[in-house]
């Protein structure tokens, strides 16, 4: 039996349906397809179709051992999927409290084998008479009561506001002290009701919390009789919105934004004056009063990097507010002090699944700087080639994400294919890929609508904190490779653009793929960076490496061959903080294009 079986006795029709479902595996990937691609997995070749909505998926694919916050989001996604549903964990155990139906290692052959197992598990176990509901701590919610005008008033029971006397309205928050009371009793799994359609209260109570989408105040079932409650949570005005309202009481540090807004309630439309209804609503820049809704985009969302928790406050389809944070940042996963040097190097390799070589390289160089070791010339050249190969693969992965985000299906497939081919390619394989890569880049320049879609979107002005392609697209020649002797020996020269918009960032990355190919051509064979011997050495040193997203810096202190201090600076950390100003007042699609164009890696963000 599979955990996510649909309740029901087997019969002929269900046998056929189970067979069909086994042939039609639709997967939603946590943390995201970009991580699966960076790990060299070809999901389509294994027979998995990627879906955008968890409602359309029947396989939850977990790639790698994931941090707890992301697993909580995965729990919510799992609850939103329709039964029968399966969990496939690659390199992990599954969800907290629920083991994966099939677990395998992170590699293409084991993925292929796992999909075969998934199919037979589904064909044999899609239905079960005693299928059970799914419960998890991340799904518990609490109802609390608050005053629409005074958000600081929060009570556990209904009543009137002590300040203004208005009736308190209910809202749902995350947190597990008490299981959800009355409105959402756990329902039976698919009971044999006369009408097949029914509401799974246990699931939809939290619909799309992790993935986004639903923003009802569930509590309005009982509270909606009051006019005031129609706009309860969406009645932000600017001052409230910016301070306490979001930061402490409501979101409570969790990633599940947006589920406590009743802005779109469309029950009981009693007559009410338009002026009355809209007088307290926030005013947009065009002075039209509208309901504002908080919509989560992530931590798992197609076209955005997985692990990035982005909540946009939408005023119509215009972005009025942004909350962005990483759920998978560095400090949650990696301790960097008092460890052996080779553990540091291994830890850095796993630090960012989107740039393992660059961070491994960074750790090796910092160790060398601290211990005074200098590798031979040919090793340095080989490292340059390995780093540039990763840059090509990473930019291709970004192009695939751009393809997904902008609905450019051909680009998504083609770039993903080339990325997988580049990942482990040796010198000769890379050279034979060269013509295909250049053809892709030429094709991009000829694609109609692409320039129109990205030009003048997300313009970033030059600022010293910018890094990597984002900086170089804004006319700044910041590049850690400029000061690197191994690069100078290969006649490296950084290039850039001046406009600073999303299209310039695309152009810079396209140019960099070309440059990296040239660099590899002159550098020759590739070489993975290996940690130097630093036994019983003491010292301090720092190193900088131009990762695909920009310069990362590491300061290390060694004492008797152990790392006692480490200070890491990564490029995405600052870029994430740009989102608030960049996205303000943009149309939703443009805002998401902007986020995508920055090529953030949530994994390298320092919390």
């Amino acid at each position, binding site marked *: 039996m599979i955990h996510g079986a*649909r309740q029901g006795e087997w019969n002929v029709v269900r046998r056929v349906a189970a067979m069909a*479902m086994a*042939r039609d595996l639709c997967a939603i990937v946590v943390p995201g397809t970009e991580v699966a691609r960076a790990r060299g997995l070809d999901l389509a070749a294994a027979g998995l179709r990627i879906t955008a909505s968890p409602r359309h998926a029947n396989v939850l694919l977990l790639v790698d051992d994931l941090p707890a916050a992301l697993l909580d989001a995965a729990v919510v996604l799992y609850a939103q999927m329709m039964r029968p549903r399966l969990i496939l964990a690659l390199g992990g155990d599954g969800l907290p409290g629920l083991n994966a139906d099939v677990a395998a290692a992170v590699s293409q052959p084991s993925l292929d084998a796992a999909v075969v197992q998934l199919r037979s598990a589904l064909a044999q176990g899609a239905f079960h008479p005693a299928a059970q509901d799914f419960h998890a701590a991340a799904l518990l919610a609490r109802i609390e009561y608050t005053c629409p005008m005074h958000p600081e008033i929060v009570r556990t029971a209904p009543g009137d506001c002590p300040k203004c006397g208005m009736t308190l309205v209910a809202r749902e928050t995350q947190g597990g002290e008490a299981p959800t009371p009355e409105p959402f009793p756990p329902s039976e799994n698919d009971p044999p009701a006369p009408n097949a359609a029914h509401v799974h209260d246990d699931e939809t109570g939290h619909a799309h919390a992790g993935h986004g*989408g639903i923003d009802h105040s569930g509590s309005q079932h009982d509270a909606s009789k009051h006019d005031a409650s129609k706009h309860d949570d969406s009645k932000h005005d600017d001052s409230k919105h910016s301070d306490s309202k979001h930061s402490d009481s409501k979101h409570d540090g969790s990633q599940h934004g947006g589920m406590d807004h009743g802005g779109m309630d469309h029950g009981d439309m009693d007559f009410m004056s338009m002026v009355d209804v809209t007088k307290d609503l926030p005013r947009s820049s065009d002075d039209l009063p509208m309901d504002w809704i908080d919509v989560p985009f992530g931590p798992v969302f197609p076209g955005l990097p997985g692990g990035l928790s982005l909540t946009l406050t939408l005023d119509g*389809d215009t972005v009025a507010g942004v909350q962005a944070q990483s759920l998978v940042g560095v400090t949650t996963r990696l301790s960097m002090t008092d460890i052996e040097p080779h553990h540091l190097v291994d830890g850095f390799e796993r630090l960012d699944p989107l740039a393992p070589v660059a961070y491994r390289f960074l750790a090796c160089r910092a160790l060398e700087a601290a211990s005074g070791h200098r590798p031979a010339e040919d090793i340095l050249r080989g490292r340059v080639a390995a780093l540039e190969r990763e840059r090509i693969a990473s930019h291709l992965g970004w192009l695939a994400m751009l393809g997904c985000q902008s609905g450019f299906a051909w680009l998504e497939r083609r770039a993903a294919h080339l990325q997988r081919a580049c990942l482990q390619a040796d010198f000769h394989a890379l050279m034979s890929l060269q013509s295909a890569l250049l053809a892709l880049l030429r094709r991009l320049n000829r694609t109609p609508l692409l320039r129109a879609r990205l030009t003048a979107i997300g313009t970033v002005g030059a600022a010293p904190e910018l890094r990597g392609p984002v900086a170089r697209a804004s006319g700044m020649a910041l590049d850690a490779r400029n000061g690197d002797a191994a690069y100078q020996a290969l006649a490296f020269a950084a290039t850039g653009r001046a406009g600073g918009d999303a299209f310039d960032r695309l152009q810079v990355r396209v140019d960099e793929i070309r440059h990296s190919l040239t660099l590899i051509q002159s550098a020759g064979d590739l070489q993975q960076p290996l940690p130097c011997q630093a036994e019983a050495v003491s010292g301090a040193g720092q190193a900088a490496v131009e990762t695909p997203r920009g310069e990362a810096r590491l300061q290390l202190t060694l004492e008797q061959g152990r790392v006692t201090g480490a200070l890491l600076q990564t490029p995405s950390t600052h870029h994430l903080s740009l989102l608030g100003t960049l996205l303000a007042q943009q149309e939703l699609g443009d805002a998401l294009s902007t986020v995508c164009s920055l090529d953030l890696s949530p994994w390298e963000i320092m919390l």
Partner: protein
Amino acid sequence: MSLLVVVLFLLSAAYLVAVLEDRLTNGRWRWLGPAWAGVALLGRESTLPRKPDRLFFETAPLLLLVAAVLAAAVLPLAPGLVIADLATGALFVNAALAYVLVALLMAGWGPDGAYALVGGWRFLGQVVAYSMLIVMPITAVAMRAESLLTTDIVVSQEALWNLVYQPLGFVLFFIASLAVCFLPPFDLPTAPGELAGGVAAEYSGARLAVWRLARLVLVVALAAATTVFYLGGWLGPLLPPWLWSVVKILAVSAAMLLGGHYLPRIREAQLLAWCWKLGIPLALLNIFVVGVLVLIWT
């Protein structure tokens, strides 16, 4: 009889379109793929969102299907092979397509979810952009045929297809019909990378199966309209008339799917700007040119 044949044709053509769509997304020809996917959807749960507008949510997929079938009902596959040969057929197509908007708005409003809601209202903007580009090229087609009967329109192209007679109108109508079917690059209401499925995001199981079927039938209906208005309908040498219709409709459907595969999604603001500032003047020019040609040749 015609009803049965036309409905069977719509279903089988929709199936082939689904096969092609599957090929484009997954890179392989799987001739049974859509059949398995359809049966699998029927076997899955189909839940309601927590606070749906039940009427809107349940009706929207059916309404979309009805709108698509109604549009196809006045389009002849062969002489006599048409469900209803209305005297106002060409206008009726446009009237039926107006319900696509209603269906999408209902699907957007029904589930009470943000992605769907934004998707639904986006389509309202899209309708404002494309609707004139459906009506005005049809006007020019009817001017040449001097009739709104779709069968007359086909017969009027006996000497020269409208594709050649009024190429500008064809281009505008083709682009607008992509927008009607919210196919890429006009998939603003569903936008997988922006709205995670948008208006369709909350549908699951059997309801999703109906929604997908409706969308495929809509594509076929618009391809049939393009065929009747611009590609001479059933006209053609050697092959029987119905086969010509089938071949042309399938080819147009394939072209509709293929175009968007190689393009990024258009931005909503640009869609509106280009349609009104460029598309409508061009459509007027097309009417003018066709008017002059009609005057000269008759």
